[in-house]
């Protein structure tokens, strides 16, 4: 009987060689891509946290205009990373060989990103800028040692969006009526909220994106805390979150949740945009979500406290990746995307930090869904009175550790002062 002949040794050796060669080629190809000079169209990846197709199209139009002005071809790739995961995923990508060439940066992450060296110096690319047109305050957060590392494209205040139908149904004065009476305060905000819930059975207020108890806790509490004269911490390292002003402000919000039961509570998924809450907090970029709303809606600035009105300004900047293969081109594109004409085109979605655009009539009429009066009162004026959230190079640690203590607030019998003392201890540990 003839034995079945196993695969020949030569053939096996050839297979091994082919496998090894294929593996080697795969790795060497990867290495070649990272070092070779690009020919033909330049590929640029831009990381953002928006996935809105209209907004992406607008950003892409800037890229194509820039390419035309340079006489080159740019193949843009917009990478949308969800807001809640943005810093995590972005930081991972930036350490790899294939990180984005340009990326948006959140204001709370600004010091850490600048300190990390991942942002390219933009001084050279910004030479054509008129420095007087950009408020120095707006650039302060994004600068270090006199150099700029990212340019804010959005200086967008948070304001109140409300459902007119629900206020009418409840027989309660809506925010605009209270503004007309000069009575748009946090105390009255609380009173009308209770009226709305008691009379309609529907939640009066949903926190910003429904994340006011966790990912957006600072956005949620800052307007109340600051209008009461308090704050979280200051740039010079003072911790203020457990001072009496902040405690009174947080207590007001806590009572709305657990005494009045007028706020969508933690874990409940009722949503303003679906008509299941009478008010929420939003920015101008969120207004597009109301395009097909089944109810009449209004827009008002944040209520005032004993120290006036203190809206939070959400600032977002764009920077170039210092390790990008096309770092100079990316830096030039950053400058182009934030020049006067680009900023004017974006103003209806992302309010600018440029004075010339902000003061123009074109800005006040830039969003077709928002009246010029609303734009002036809730956006332009709020940019003047508002402030960005506090930031720190240790913000990632502060955010994670303070959440453990903040979580204790969301119980009916929570001792607000004691919990804020704990939060203050976490802040003090990192802010020295």
């Amino acid at each position: 009987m003839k034995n079945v002949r196993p695969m020949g040794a030569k053939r096996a050796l050839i297979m091994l060689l082919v496998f090894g060669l294929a593996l080697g080629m795969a790795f060497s190809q990867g290495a070649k891509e990272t070092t070779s000079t690009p020919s033909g169209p330049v590929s640029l990846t831009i990381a953002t946290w928006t996935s809105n197709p209209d907004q992406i199209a607008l950003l892409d139009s800037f890229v194509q205009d820039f390419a035309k002005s340079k006489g080159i071809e740019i193949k843009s790739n917009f990478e949308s990373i969800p807001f809640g995961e943005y810093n995590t995923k972005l930081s991972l990508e930036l350490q790899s060989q294939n990180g984005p060439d340009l990326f948006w940066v959140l204001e709370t992450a600004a010091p850490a990103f600048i300190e990390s060296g991942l942002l390219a110096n933009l001084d050279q690319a910004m030479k054509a800028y008129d420095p007087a047109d950009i408020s120095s305050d707006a650039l302060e957060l994004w600068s270090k040692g006199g150099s700029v590392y990212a340019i804010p494209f959005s200086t967008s205040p948070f304001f109140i969006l409300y459902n007119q139908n629900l206020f009418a149904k409840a027989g309660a004065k809506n925010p605009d009526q209270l503004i007309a009476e000069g009575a748009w305060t946090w105390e009255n905000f609380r009173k009308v909220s209770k009226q709305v819930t008691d009379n309609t059975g529907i939640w009066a207020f949903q926190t910003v994106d429904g994340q006011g108890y966790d990912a957006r806790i600072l956005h949620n509490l800052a307007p109340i805390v600051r209008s009461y004269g308090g704050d979280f911490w200051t740039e010079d390292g003072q911790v203020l979150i457990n001072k009496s002003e902040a405690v009174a402000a947080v207590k007001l919000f806590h009572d709305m949740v657990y005494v009045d039961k007028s706020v969508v509570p933690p874990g409940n998924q009722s949503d303003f945009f679906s008509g299941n809450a009478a008010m929420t907090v939003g920015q101008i970029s969120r207004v597009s979500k109301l395009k097909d709303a089944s109810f009449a809606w209004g827009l008002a600035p944040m209520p005032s406290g004993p120290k006036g009105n203190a809206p939070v300004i959400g600032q977002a900047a764009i920077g170039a990746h210092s390790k990008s293969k096309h770092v100079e081109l990316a830096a030039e594109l950053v400058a182009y995307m934030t020049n006067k004409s680009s900023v004017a085109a974006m103003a209806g979605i992302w309010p600018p930090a440029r004075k010339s655009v902000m003061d123009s009539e074109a800005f006040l009429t830039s969003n077709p869904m928002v009246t010029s009066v609303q734009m002036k009162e809730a956006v332009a004026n709020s940019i003047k009175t508002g402030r960005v959230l506090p930031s720190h190079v240790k913000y990632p640690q502060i955010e994670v550790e303070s959440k453990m203590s903040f979580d204790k607030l969301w119980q009916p019998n929570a001792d607000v002062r004691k919990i804020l003392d704990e939060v203050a201890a976490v802040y003090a540990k990192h802010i020295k």
Partner: protein
Amino acid sequence: MKKLSLQSTHRREAIIGWAFVTPQMAGFIIFVLLPLVSVFMYGMQEKNLLFGTSSFVGLDNFGRLFSDPLFVKSLVNTLIFSAGVVPLNLIFSLMLALYLGGGKTGTRFVRGIIFLPVVTSGVAWAIVWRYLLQGGTAGPVNWFLSQVGIEGPNWLFEKGWAMASVIVTRVMKNLGMNVLIFMGAVLNMPGDVIEAARIDGAKGWNLFSKIKLPLLMPTVMMVTIVTVIGSMRVFDTIKLMTDGGPEGSTMVMVYYIYHQAFRMFETGYASAIAVVLFGIVLVLTLGQWVSRKRVSYYEV
């Protein structure tokens, strides 16, 4: 001449053997062994993911673990989670396997229902349960309870309930797989042994504990090891349902590793925690493996 030919055949076979295992070995080395060794090395470095910096610190990261209250909390939470998931999973899956293995009517339908969560995406499962377990009467679970006069808690936002909720949803998600494994063992139990026991008068609990359970013990041991390891590695359920809260009450070790590595960017310290978790799983698995002979009469 004959001897040379034998040597040459051996060599040829060895080369062929290596040719077959090389792709698998390459995959194992690149994707398992190297990362594993790297984790041990990173554990001895102060390594920051955002800043891209690293420096050798020896065993400092391991020393830091004992003074980190969040690590201790995550360790305790992991043990609580496993202590909840493993017995519940084993008891229910064994009970269901014994019932379904009996060949009663409708068992095929019940089998399908129980196995459905296993093929469902873990993400979808967690998101649906987060919706079902909303507080007040907004969540369907609490609405149902309110219909029978019970005021349900805010399941995922109250300390004690949050852990209980993730344990129960996790058990329901993975029950089907263990039921399937146990059913295979139940259907393979030697019928003559059981028949003989029945003739001798064994029934009910006696029949189960003295005859069926010992016959199933090798499978029970294997399922226990797999379930313990799985429960120690829980991530998606926690991430999507509670984010480790409230107050860190569901912060298990794997989620704490994620927090340290990707939210605080301390990759070195996160790797040290990963090494500890690896050690714990290894010890538990070895412990169960060594003790198998005491609780199992034979091996499959």
